């Protein structure tokens, strides 16, 4: 199942994500994670560290959910492809083409949502490293150069913003494609009286 998901993400994206992860790992890799029960830390600091840890876990859960969603979307796109074939055979070529476009756009959107989720995991990890380092420095537990860590978090944040903006645009495009699909389907059913092609 995981293999299918990776394949669905695509080699180019996988490479980009790997590079991104490597960059962030390089920045935060030298930070020793603090324990949330470390008696040298005040309660507020422990909570802060724990929150960062939670952030990573939540981001990973969201990524897994996105991966599952991509898989379901791909599966559904196959079904939509079959429905498009049915439509084409019944003479609804226009509607069939629109349906195929919708299916492809959905998969592309789901892929990019997964990509964003991966980036958000990287961002949460970078933030965790930064917070651990800041906390350690603040309480004289270790010495770190904080600036690279801050830059890494900022870079990840900027990347998520960029991807989110891209996703917003994709969603808008998908909404337009979907409208075109249903309009063409409505025309076809009204003209031909065939209403069962999507229900086989």
């Amino acid at each position, binding site marked *: 199942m995981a293999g299918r998901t990776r394949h669905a993400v695509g080699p180019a994206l996988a490479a980009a994500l790997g590079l991104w992860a490597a960059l962030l790992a390089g920045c935060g890799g030298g930070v020793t994670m603090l324990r949330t029960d470390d008696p040298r830390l005040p309660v507020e600091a422990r909570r802060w560290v724990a929150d960062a840890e939670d*952030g990573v876990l939540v981001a990973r859960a969201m990524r897994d959910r996105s991966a599952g969603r991509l898989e*379901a*979307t791909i599966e*559904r796109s196959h079904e*939509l492809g079959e429905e498009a074939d049915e439509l084409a055979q019944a003479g609804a070529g226009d509607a069939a083409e629109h349906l195929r476009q919708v299916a492809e756009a959905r998969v592309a959107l789901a892929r990019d949502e997964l990509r964003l989720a991966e980036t958000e995991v990287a*961002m949460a990890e970078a933030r965790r490293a930064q917070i651990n380092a800041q906390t350690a420095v603040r309480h004289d537990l270790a010495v770190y150069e904080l600036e690279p860590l801050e830059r890494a978090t900022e870079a990840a*944040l900027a990347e*998520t*913003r960029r991807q*989110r*903006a891209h996703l*917003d645009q994709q*969603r808008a495009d998908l*909404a337009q494609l*979907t*409208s075109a699909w*249903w*309009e063409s*389907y*409505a025309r076809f*059913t009204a003209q031909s009286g065939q*209403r*069962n092609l*999507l*229900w*086989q």
Partner: protein
Amino acid sequence: MSSARRIGALLVAATLLGACAAPRQQVSDPPYVEQLRLRITKVRGAIQETREAIARSRGAAWLPELYVRLAELLSEEARYHFEVAYEREQRSSRVLHVPQVRFLKEQAISVYRRVLAEHPDAALADRILFNIGHELRELGRYDEMVAALEELSTRFPKSPLRAEALLVLGDHAFDKGELETAERRYQAIVSGPPTAVTGLAHYKLGWVWMNRADCAKSLGAFERAIDAAAAWQAARGASGTERAGQGGVGVGGAAAERPGQAIDVRREALVDLVYCYATDRPVAEALPYLRSRAATRAAYVAALERLASRYGVLDEAKGSAAVTRELLRLGPTAPERLDDARQLYGAVTKAGLYDRVGEDVGLITTALRRQLQRVEGSEEMRQLTRKELELYARDLATRAQAAFQRRPQDTALGAQVAKAYAVWLDAFPQAGERVAILLNLADVLAELGRHEEAGLRYAEAAQVSVDDASRKDRLYDAVVEFQASLGGLAGRSHTDRVVVRAAMRRSGEQLLAMGLEPDKARVTKLGMAQTWYDSGDYDRAIDQLTALAYEYPGTKEGRAAVHLVLDSFNTLNDYEGLIAAGRRFMGPGGPADDALRREILPIVTAAENRRLDEVSLAAAGAEGGDLDSLEQFAERYQGTDLGERALLNAFVAARAVGDRKRLYELGEELARSYPKSEQVPGILGSLGKQAVATFELDRAVGLFEKAAAGATEQRPRLLVAAGELLEATGQTQRALDLYGRAVAAAGETAARQQPLERLARALEILGDDRRLVSTLAPLSGGASADVLARLGLAQARIGRVDDAERNLGAALAAPDATAEAKARAHLGSAETLARALEGYEVAGDLEGIQELVTLIDVTEQAYLQAARQGSALVTPVALGRLAAMAGTAAARVSRLQPPGDLSAADAEAFRQGLARRVDALGATGRDALQACAEQAWTGRVFNEAVRSCLAGRPVSADAVRAEGLRPRASVTLPPAAEELRGRLAKNPEDAETLVALASLALDAGDPHLARVALARAVAQGGGPEAQNLLGIASLDAGDLTGALEAFADAADAGLEAGRQNLAAALRGAGLAEAAQKALERFAAGKPGGRLLPGAGGS
């Protein structure tokens, strides 16, 4: 391993295996007769040995026991001979004539009697008598037997053998039909202490009463038999069987193993009491009664079988049904179960007892199945049996359904009917009536509201239906039921839910493939799509429901589909999707008619609001600052309330993250796109505050003015804010204009006070008393004490004494007058008096001179009163003015001449008095001047009045006004200022950044900005360095007073630069002596801080 060794090993293994595999030799048991003969041989040996022992034991104490042993051995040999004969006769009869037996038994009796005769008190006498009775009974000599056992029971009342003897006597009487005698014997047992045969005696008594047709007593006796046997078992921990007969407890056990003599009293009593129970006790309690008394399941079943038979004979249907159900449940697999099934069917149909028909059909079919599993019986018989019981089961179910149709509210009956049909279907899968039964079952389930099961049954019926028309009907029925079930699946198992939904879709697909009328097609499709919706697969649900909406617009199902689509998006929290779908439905070519549009428009609108909240939340979250999505949202909904709210939220988010550039852009966009928005003034005002926080002073003034233009209630406050900024940049005239507009905007409300006070203060700074009076006098009605005091003071200065006195008096009388207002009012009064003093023409007489002196005293007191109010600004002015007045008065007094009518002595005294008065006035003037100058060192006050005092100059009448600033030059700060402003946008109280920005401004030639920034830095704890810089900025901006005070504070805080700058500034102001004094007054401080040009040189 070598091959030779391997072959050897194989040979050994083969040999061993061969040995193991050799056929076993069969060794059969020896024939029973042979065993008996062997025993005879052995017992004869024992008899011989015993005889020899007796011969050797003459006179011994144990001789009676040896005789008893000999008799028992003889009896034993007799028994073996009987068994040999019995076997020889092929066990055909136990009535045999065997001479050896009779001979040996008589020998045994003879030996027993000899012992009794020779040893009448022998310890074994009771046992001897019991054994004699036993032998006599077997020899058929009953009278002698009775005599022997009666002797035993009479002579040995405490013998453990007495009860058994009585039992034998009772049985003998019972067999002879002498029931009274038998009863007496049995009663003798049960009335004695408990024994092993007490239960049996009760049991026998039960039979005695039954033979007398007294069922009540019989039942009681049987119940007591069961209880007594159970009690004895419990007490002895024995197994369930007692031994009847003499040998049960006999020593040596000669009769202990005798077959055919064992009886399970509890079982037999339970079975035998059934006869009377069936007639005497209620049917309903039969099963619990028997169950509670049964020691074993076998006993219970035996009793049930007897009871079933009895109820059958009595034609008791309810009882028959209950008992046969229990038998079918518990009874062992046997042909009798078929009879039970038949009896159950008959009983149920006769009485119409269908409330347990499901279980009954289950019992009948189980009995059938078990019977068919048995190997006995022909195939023909099996088929007949199957056919017979299938008919019974089907008949029961259909009769029960008919009953349910008559009582449809009886859902328990309906459930039983459904169960009966389901059992039938499982039991007879190949039956020809299957379709009919499936439909019956589906109908019942539908009636019961068990729609999902009904749907499954209809679907099953459709699969086995032979023609398309009926198949289609069944499938549609299935779809309708499935659809009805979808809402009620929440409490069902996951498997149930999945099965039902899959069945629904499968049925729907089949139906649609067969061609369906449009109304039915709609219903079917909605049901199919709903299965995705209910299973949480909203993506598929949305696709199918949308298809349905477009395929059947304007229909009930189409409308439902539209709502379900929107609800699916809502459940997914996909507001964007909901909005798009909703707009699509409502748009041209969409499936929504006007009515539906009215329904979904609020849903879409709510989603748009929620989507905006979502986007706003994301922009304000941990990764906030992503304003693009909000701006896009605003653009998409431009001109609507939603668009305005989006811009507002973007504005709030930009402010939260300190993005100044976007903040100003968004604010301007808001003001441009939504000029009538009630939020615009607030937004612009907020932007103005932001500009103040980042010291973009001109922008702040512009924003406040724009905000004021759109505001109503807040307009005075906004204009004042702009005016204050203008004052801080030396633009007092423009500030005056704004204050005036603010006063006008406030009207007669309480909001008028603040702008009016600012207006009065600004007018005072300008130093134009006449303009101040002409501007403020019309506005003075209801003005604050501060305004009235300033007005009164100005009026006093221009000689409008009456007006001045009125306003000053009002200021002093005001309950909320500040110390400065009071001080100013007193100063005004003093100035009025001083002015009167100046113009006072002294008459040459004594009275005129006296008046002058009094006027001087009153004026002096007025100044002192002003000085005592504690105003840092007014106190030195009052003191300075007092000094001036004292000087002037002293000069006038010194010029006075005594009146001409005085004597020479009086004239001299008069002159001396005037001289003392002149001296006193001189002293007052000096003291006042010194106190005024001292304010510099004690209160760090360096205003114009104090500086005059330090210089020894008279203080002018208008020294009370604050100093005006030089106009601010137009300066562009270097780019670094932007970053500092960015920091201040996020934290306006960052003292370090404030000082940095001020330094930048100071270096760039904008001391006004620096002065404002440093004032805030000092307020935020910027320290002596910030105070010193504030002094430099103030000096550059034209605020000498502020500069000196700031330097003094820095010097007081230990900064050497402050000390040196104070001295330098004082020197620059022509106060060299004061500068020197400053250096003496303040200790040398720590190094650091900026120095004025020329500072630090002294």
